[in-house]
């Protein structure tokens, strides 16, 4: 059977993909520009078909803690929000990292700081990949650049979360959330039964049977020696993720004179800038990190000796550029170009900035 191609917004694709993944629950609170995720779920009524629970919480705090509770039962649960709301979720994210709970969190970023603007931004890069909540933890971070990837990363995000017992985040922005594109949704798969969850996730709190000890979901350990052991275990897990889960896309990088690093919607705009540059005989390569953590340091490092300059182009004041500089480690000039506060640059503007800063 031919794959069915649909036209929809990125936010809608997230909702449909979650139902098809066999997600057990969604808990959210409305905020622009991602409210279509919960609206679509409510309209689809998956509780009548797959049995998925969808609940509008009283706050982002409540929503992320509902996700904690569901994840603690070994269920596939998710939430979504936008920047100010994701700031509120940081407490819960840190607790989930500490309790080693798998879950999917979607951030459709808007401009900040504070209440900021509802227009697109990528200014939550630091918050997502450098911490956000308290403590030494990491968040698996996927950056979609299309509506198709919004759908695909629901599956990938859940799968990675369960593989490593760690929360994962889809870090999109207002453009990817709001724009409509063609998308092929993943096939339907049934939700796991309680017995399947008990077998696959023996740590889940589904009621203590006689054959095991009580399961306790907690991030608390007052004995510092044991707490250090916990942290060492987390770090070993993060090292495994860094080793196996780096994902990125390269477009015309091999014979490029200059390298652009850009993620999400900005990478799409940079693709157009690449075409404009090619027409002028300028060879630009584009390296698009798909996982922002783990970051593709090695892939970028590989080009540091081959190009005349590297530029990180972001919808922020210069955040990912710090990781690009770590990868390049001083071997070649690294610049940043970005627009702030919800302004999105045109491909022409991007090309002008590249010429001005690198050539």
């Amino acid at each position, binding site marked *: 059977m031919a794959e069915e191609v649909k036209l929809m917004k990125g936010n809608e694709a997230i909702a449909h993909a979650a139902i098809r993944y066999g997600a057990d*629950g969604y808990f959210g609170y409305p905020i622009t520009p991602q409210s279509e995720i919960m609206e679509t779920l409510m309209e689809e009524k998956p509780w009548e078909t797959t049995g998925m629970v969808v609940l509008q919480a009283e706050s982002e705090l*409540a929503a992320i803690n*509902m996700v904690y*509770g569901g994840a603690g039962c070994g269920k596939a649960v998710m939430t979504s929000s936008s920047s100010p709301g994701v700031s509120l979720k940081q407490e819960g994210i840190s607790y989930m990292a500490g309790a080693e709970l798998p879950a999917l969190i979607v951030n459709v970023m808007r401009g900040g700081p504070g209440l900021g603007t509802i227009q697109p931004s990528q200014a939550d890069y630091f918050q997502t990949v450098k911490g956000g909540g308290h403590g030494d933890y990491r968040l698996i971070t996927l950056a979609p650049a299309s509506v198709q990837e919004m759908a695909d990363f629901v599956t990938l995000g859940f799968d990675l979360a369960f593989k490593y017992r760690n929360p994962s985040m889809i870090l999109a922005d207002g453009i990817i959330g709001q724009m409509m594109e063609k998308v092929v949704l993943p096939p339907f798969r049934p939700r796991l039964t*309680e017995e399947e969850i008990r077998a696959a996730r023996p740590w889940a*709190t589904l*009621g203590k049977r006689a054959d095991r000890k*009580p399961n306790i*979901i907690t991030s608390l350990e007052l004995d510092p020696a044991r707490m250090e052991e916990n942290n060492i275990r987390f770090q070993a897990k993060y090292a495994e993720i860094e080793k196996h889960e780096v994902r990125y896309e390269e477009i015309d990088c091999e014979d490029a004179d200059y390298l652009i690093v850009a993620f999400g919607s900005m990478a799409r705009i940079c693709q157009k800038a690449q075409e404009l540059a090619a027409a002028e005989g300028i060879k630009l390569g584009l390296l698009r990190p798909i996982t922002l953590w783990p970051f593709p340091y090695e892939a970028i490092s590989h080009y540091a000796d081959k190009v005349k300059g590297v530029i990180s182009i972001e919808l922020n004041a210069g955040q990912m550029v710090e990781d690009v500089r770590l990868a390049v480690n001083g071997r070649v000039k690294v610049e940043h170009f970005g627009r702030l506060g919800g302004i999105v640059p045109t491909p022409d503007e991007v090309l002008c900035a590249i010429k001005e800063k690198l050539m």
Partner: protein
Amino acid sequence: MDIQDIIKPENLVYDKPRLMNDNPMHYCPGCSHGVVHKLIAEIIDEMGMEESSVGIAPVGCAVFAYNYIDIDWQEAAHGRAPAIATAVKRLNPDKLVFTYQGDGDLAAIGTAETIHACNRGENIAIIFINNGIYGMTGGQMAPTTLEGMVTATCPYGRNVELYGYPLKISDLVAKLDGTCYVTRQSVHTAAAIKKTKKAIRQAFENSMAKKGTSLVEVVSTCNSGWKMSPEKANTWMEENMFAKYPMGDLKNE
């Protein structure tokens, strides 16, 4: 008759609940938590719900509740237990899901989660220990601290003009359409313990019958935080706490 002749199963009149383990409790001598823990363990066993119960522990003195009752537990962030319980119950409608929370957790930092879980009529039971003080952090003022009561952060007594009034949150949630049973009990006498056991049992049965949210407030002592002997704390509670937080059902539908 030798003493060994008397120690026989048929002569047993009282025993440690089967679901309570032998971990030494961290609670202070005289504290009410141990009694309420015992009641919960007994009731879950009597209801035959051991294999399908999930407890949500708070932040506060009862943060380690999961160390003493051998069922599955989740440890919540401060105040968030009702949100966690909401998801656990909605995703597992046939489980017995309850929170165990103190006054700081439930009535200060977790007020929003408490009110909204109750207002949605989540089919959970909330066990609310009200001792009018923050025990674990060393005796600071709680939302339920009585007027004039001395704590580490109101050392000259709670001045209601500065810090507001003791919050009667059980009265508040009793007004919500989502609650089916709200009661205020204590565990300072044998008779009171029996009544509290009956109340918690009813709350758990309501949860399983999907009747809505039940909240059992247990007005308790914190003799360490109150800086009193356990006996004096009981008397002080009867004379002062009960005046503000009177015993009995606030709602039973």
